[in-house]
């Protein structure tokens, strides 16, 4: 199994998960994080840290698309191993619906 980052992360991108991950397996895009499934050790420490409940174990049903997305984007985006400030408008997007349409596939800008 692995944990995966899901839709709630988009445009929120809190990085509390990054601060606790023991193996630095989060990768950073412009407005979302993903987990590298081959590097995740399934320890679960990140799941309760996420303020917007975006991290789920892939053993939950219906997450196939998110597993594929995490796998793909982790191969493109750079690793993030230090916590940083969330976007200034993160709170506005917390409970927004249909956030997938806003996903940027771009890596975070250096």
């Amino acid at each position, binding site marked *: 199994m692995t944990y995966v980052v899901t839709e709630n992360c988009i445009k929120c991108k809190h990085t509390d998960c990054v601060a*606790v991950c*023991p*193996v*630095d397996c989060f990768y950073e895009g412009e407005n979302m994080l993903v987990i590298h499934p081959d*590097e*995740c*050790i*399934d*320890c*679960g*420490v990140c*799941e*309760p840290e996420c303020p917007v409940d975006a991290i789920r174990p892939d053993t939950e049903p219906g997450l196939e698309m998110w597993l594929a997305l995490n796998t793909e984007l982790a191969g493109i985006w750079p690793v993030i*191993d230090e916590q940083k400030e969330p976007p200034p408008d993160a709170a506005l997007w917390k409970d927004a619906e249909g956030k997938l349409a806003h996903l940027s596939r771009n890596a975070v800008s250096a």
Partner: protein
Amino acid sequence: MTSTANLSPADFTSDQEVRWCPGCGDFAILAQMKKLLPTLGVRPENTVFVSGIGCSSRFPYYLETYGLHSIHGRAPAIATGLKHTRPDLQVWVVTGDGDALSIGCTHLLHALRRNVDIKILLFNNRIYGLTKGQFSPTSLPGLVTGSSPEGTTHQPLHPLSIALASKATFVARSIDTNAKHLSETLRRAAEHKGSAFVEIFQNCHIYNDGAFDFAKNAAIRDDHLVQLEHGAPLVFGKERNKGIRLNGSQLEVVTAENGDVPSNLLVHDELSPTATIAHMIAAMSHPDMPEAIGVLRAVSEPTHNELMHDQNPEPAERSAALERLLRSGETWTVN
């Protein structure tokens, strides 16, 4: 099914829910083990994990191999008996610093000196975690725990030093979250013929968080770790400008002023017939010295099973010899 060609991590993953604290280093070790096992050419039903008592000793539950969650400290003895009678099996021992170095310390020594072909993994977190935080045989002086409210006062045991003193033929160290290094070290241990001992720095982030920060924190670890490679000089440091040199009877750190690699450094020899230098490397302790990871020693000696076989190669004759021993006189009848 006898083929080992198409095995995958899923073939070695049990249906049990993994129960360690979220963030535990044990997850990282389990993850690498599940990736490694399918590549070793041994089927799950020919693989056995024997553990003692402690957080680490939950390991066998999570692998779809044979497993025995055994008696506190006695995993090496049980594994010895198993390998003695079933030399066809690949036998691993999973233990911790409390299990292996306190209640089970003498079992560990004797399994190693007998060169039984078992692979002993010691998850060292320098704390008793399962019993909620008491100092262990590897806790550092001054550590405040539930059982040492004013700090521990004793010197820690060095697992590598103990393994070397016990004549272990393979001695190595790695780090839970260093996936590549850990995987390669475990592979070397698996492929070694004879007793293999691997100490793994394992973070207990509940009761002893950061115990190995010097070795895991990317910002500082390069200045506090020497990665051993057979035939290579002991060079370390973020700038790769520090090294270990033998000065008289002591090891010392030397730093090149001009940014080059220092000269006259100790060259690592894992095959050395004497373990003298390995003992010195094993004793290097943070913060005075960098600590070593990698294979300290890997030498070839006859295994326990080979020696027993050579002593009496015929199975029928071995049975007969046992029978003669049992009926050899010097017996008493108790009324």
